[in-house]
C-alpha cells in the first residue's frame, strides 16, 4: 500500500519479486544491494536457512528520485519460492504495489514457472487483487545457461494474459538487465500512481524503453 506522508514528504511503494524456487529472486536483490549507491539504500535483510534458501523474505529499502519535493521510497521484497511456503508468500504479498515475476529460463523449470505464476494469481485473488490492477514485469532469468527456452516460448507460457507486459532477458548472477527490470517496474508504478494522483489529466505514456522489452507479435504466439 503506497502511503503519502506530507510531513516527511515521502511516498512509499512496495515491490515484490515472485517466482519459483531457486529462480534467482534473492540474487536480484543481492546484486542491486551490491551495485547501487550506498547512500540510496538501506541494509539487505535476508531471513534465510543455513543453506541460504529464503525462509521468510529478503528485504531491501531503496530511496529514489524526488517528485515535486517528495522522495519516493521503494521497498523490495522477495518471497520464498519453495511450494510449501505458500502461507509466507501470502503474507509478503500483503499491500503490494508492484511485482517482478522471475522465471527460470531452463526447459526443465517450465512447469515450476507456470505453477508459480498460477500460484501468484491465486494468492492475489485471495487478497482481492489481480495482476490486471498491479503493475508488473516479467524477468526471464539464467539466460547464460545452455538449456534454455527461447523468449518466444517463455512469452507464450507466461506473458499470455490479455494485457502483455514488458519482459527482460536477465542473468542475475552477473547483473545483466537486473537494473533494467527494476527500473521498468518502478517507472510503470510511478506512471500508474501519477494517473491515480491526477485522474483529470491525460493518461501518461508508457515508460518502456525501446529495445528493453520483448513483446512477441501476435502472429508468433502460436509456438506450442
Amino acid at each position, binding site marked *: 500500500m503506497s502511503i503519502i506522508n*506530507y510531513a516527511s514528504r515521502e511516498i512509499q511503494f512496495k515491490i515484490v519479486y515472485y517466482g519459483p524456487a531457486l529462480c534467482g529472486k534473492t540474487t536480484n536483490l543481492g546484486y542491486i544491494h551490491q551495485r547501487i549507491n550506498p547512500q540510496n539504500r*538501506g541494509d539487505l535483510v535476508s531471513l534465510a536457512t543455513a543453506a541460504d534458501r529464503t525462509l521468510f523474505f529478503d528485504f531491501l529499502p531503496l530511496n529514489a528520485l524526488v517528485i515535486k519535493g517528495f522522495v519516493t521510497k521503494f521497498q523490495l521484497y522477495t518471497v520464498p519460492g519453495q511450494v510449501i511456503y505458500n502461507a509466507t508468500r501470502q503474507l509478503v504479498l500483503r499491500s503490494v504495489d508492484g511485482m517482478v515475476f522471475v522465471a527460470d529460463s531452463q526447459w526443465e523449470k517450465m512447469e515450476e514457472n507456470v505453477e508459480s505464476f498460477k500460484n501468484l494469481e491465486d494468492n492475489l485473488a485471495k487478497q482481492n487483487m489481480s495482476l490486471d490492477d498491479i503493475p508488473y514485469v516479467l524477468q526471464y532469468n539464467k539466460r547464460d545457461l545452455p538449456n534454455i527456452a527461447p523468449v518466444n516460448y517463455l512469452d507464450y507460457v507466461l506473458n499470455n494474459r490479455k494485457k502483455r507486459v514488458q519482459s527482460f532477458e536477465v542473468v542475475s548472477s552477473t547483473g545483466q538487465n537486473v537494473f533494467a527490470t*527494476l527500473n521498468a517496474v518502478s517507472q510503470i508504478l510511478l506512471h500508474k500512481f501519477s494517473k491515480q494522483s491526477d485522474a483529470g489529466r491525460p493518461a501518461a505514456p508508457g515508460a518502456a524503453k525501446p529495445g528493453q522489452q520483448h513483446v512477441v507479435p501476435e502472429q508468433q504466439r502460436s509456438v506450442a
Partner: protein
Amino acid sequence: MNAIPVLTIDDVATLDGVLADFLKKAEAELTVVIDRGGNVISQYGDMTVMDVTIIAALAAGSFAATRELARRIGEVEFNALYHQGNGSHIFMNSVDEETIMITVFGPRTTVGLVRFYSTGTAQQVALLLKSLQKGNHGFSFDASDITAAPIFADSAPPAA
C-alpha cells in the same frame, strides 16, 4: 493502490502528539506505527540507533507469522507480542485490522507499563487513522514529472 492514504502535516502532528504522550508515560525509547505490509506510517522517539524501515518490515513479518500459531489455539491472531532481550525489548500490539504499533524500550521501564499505556494509545491511533483522507489527496504529478532516465543506476562499488 486504489485508495492511497494521505498523512497531512496536521495528521502527523496529531499522531506525533499521541505517540509522544505514550512514550513519556511508558518511558519507552521509540514507537513506530506501521501497516501490516511493513510500511512505516508514523514514528516517534530515538531513531538514531536503528533503521526504522527494516524494523517495520521485520515486525510486520513477525506479527503475521504468529497468526497461524494463534489459530492453532483457537484465536484469530495474537493481539500483542513481546520480544524480550537482555537490555532492549520490543512490544508489538494490534491497532486495527491494517495497522500495528511497535514499541522499543529498555531497562528504564517494564513491559507491564508499556502494555498498559499502549492499549489506550492504540485506540487513539486507530481512531485517527480511520479519519485519514483517502484518494483525492491533492498531491498530483504527471508523466512529465517522472524522469525519463533510469530511476536506479548500476554503479560499481566505491574503491576500497
